[in-house]
């Protein structure tokens, strides 16, 4: 039995989510191999070989993989898939694009967003926005899986001694092409990997107030910044800030929800945080039902006081 982890990377290094997927693969048991499909991605492959528990890295290095397009990535996975019983990808925008294509090409079911490995065939995954956990068993000979990063501790990025083997890259299938990207630039920690998150909702009232009120708090705590769907829909912040069922799933040590009422779709994305603080002027807001510490008050007064007190 051997597991293949589809690495998410930026060619030069591994994305943090890849380390969580490697842990899930280790939990399944058997050898853990990592596929790096990229362009000039030797550094990412070398980094993958250093990860504790990884015995081999397959490097498919080609211009076809320069923009990590899912059509080419899935074809690459299928080209090397024969040796593996489990194929795992992170449940990120990248992994969600690639893994179902792989599953369909192999005529296998996919098990999405697993949060626990029960045994090599059986996994636990959330359904209904995390309001229920389903234990599912696969009858397929190959399991294609996406992994919820927050549910598995990251594998140690060093201490491993895997080998790097170059594999033949697939040709560009020509179905899609990259046009442009607008990546949000931030000096802050990545939302899904942050220890502390300061998150704002509709209660902030505008993008300007979101920034004016929450940035000093996030600066003081070296926190990542997130938002509810309402705040993103209203245009306060870009889409990549969204925490929730259909946005990012986070589980920091401390999640501070400011002006967020707490719709079930939002709770689905943050209720596994270790400590939740809610600041809201409505004492009946559902967010207080999951918050360890609730403070009822006007956020425009309370948050500056909190910044001053820290």
């Amino acid at each position, binding site marked *: 039995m051997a597991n293949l982890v589809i690495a998410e990377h930026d060619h030069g290094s591994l994305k943090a989510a890849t380390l969580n997927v490697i842990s899930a693969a280790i939990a399944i048991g058997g050898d853990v191999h990592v596929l790096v499909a990229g362009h000039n991605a030797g550094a990412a492959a070398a980094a993958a070989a250093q990860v504790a528990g990884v015995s081999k890295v397959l490097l498919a290095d080609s211009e076809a993989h320069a923009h990590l397009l899912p*059509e080419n990535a899935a074809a690459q996975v299928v080209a090397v898939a024969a040796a593996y019983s489990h194929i795992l990808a992170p449940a990120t925008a990248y992994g*969600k694009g690639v893994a179902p294509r792989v599953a369909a090409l192999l005529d296998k079911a996919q098990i999405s967003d697993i949060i626990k490995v029960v045994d090599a065939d059986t996994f636990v995954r959330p359904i209904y926005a995390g309001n229920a956990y389903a234990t599912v068993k696969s009858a397929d000979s190959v399991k294609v899986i996406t992994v919820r990063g927050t549910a598995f501790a990251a594998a140690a990025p060093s201490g491993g001694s895997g080998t790097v083997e170059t594999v033949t890259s697939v040709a560009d299938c020509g179905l899609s092409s990259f*046009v442009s*990207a607008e990546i949000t630039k931030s000096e802050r920690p990545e939302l899904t990997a942050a220890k*502390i998150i300061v998150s704002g909702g509709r209660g902030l009232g505008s993008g300007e107030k979101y920034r004016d009120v929450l940035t000093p708090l996030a600066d003081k705590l070296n926190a990542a910044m997130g938002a509810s769907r309402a705040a993103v829909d209203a245009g306060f912040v870009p889409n990549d800030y969204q925490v929730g069922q259909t946005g990012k799933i986070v589980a920091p040590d401390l999640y501070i929800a400011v002006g967020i009422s707490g719709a079930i779709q939002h709770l689905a994305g943050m209720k596994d945080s270790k400590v939740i603080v809610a600041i809201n002027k409505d*004492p009946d807001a559902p967010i207080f039902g999951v918050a360890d510490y609730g*403070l009822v008050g006007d956020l425009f007064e309370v948050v500056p006081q909190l910044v001053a007190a820290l």
Partner: protein
Amino acid sequence: MKILVPVKRVVDYNVKVRVKPDNTGVDIANVKMSMNPFCEIAVEEAVRLREKSVATEVIAVSAGVVQCQETLRNAMAIGADRGILIETDVELQPLAIAKLLKAIVDKEQPRLVILGKQAIDDDANQTGQMLAALLGWGQATFASKVEVAGDVATVTREIDGGAETVAIKLPAIITTDLRLNEPRYATLPNIMKAKKKQLDIFKPADLAVDVAPRLTTLRVDEPPKRQGGVKVADVAALVDKLKNEAKVI
């Protein structure tokens, strides 16, 4: 060009589902069912493309129990021209649905299939990508903006770090994210009109598709309950709790 829009009937997004006491699933008897919100966005986008004369016909398709006809009527009230139901009582998993949809694509020959990125019941996020793979088509998932010109769709996608724009050759698959559009309300005259639109019904066997489930749900559990905590009086008390009790700052 034709656009095919698969739509799914799901538990309404305002309903908080409960796990059955015997742990065999969630209780969906007597709860409100609606069209999956992402599918609604897909229907709206397809109808807008027809209104802009990019598309000539919008076909809604659903797979599942007989009540999915209501979901199709709903799609037709938003503006889909006709509907197709693949009727079955078997539990349909994403791979089976992708195969059924491929059979419909083979029949109808649409140039574009627009789907919701995920259904809010099983949260699988698979069907569109699987259908793209089965057809050998390109895909643009999590779309926040779609422009079709000639044989190319230029799609802006919501990705983890921000947004990305890709160009996909038609025929192709697009899956919708939340901010692609705001679906219109179906007006009463349009709801009445939808009742008269064509709705064809097939069985999976008519399409020669094996829909047997590959995954068995062994049990369904309540997630661990989070204890609601305490309300603190002021900022000083909050800081004290965070420093000395929770020890997170």
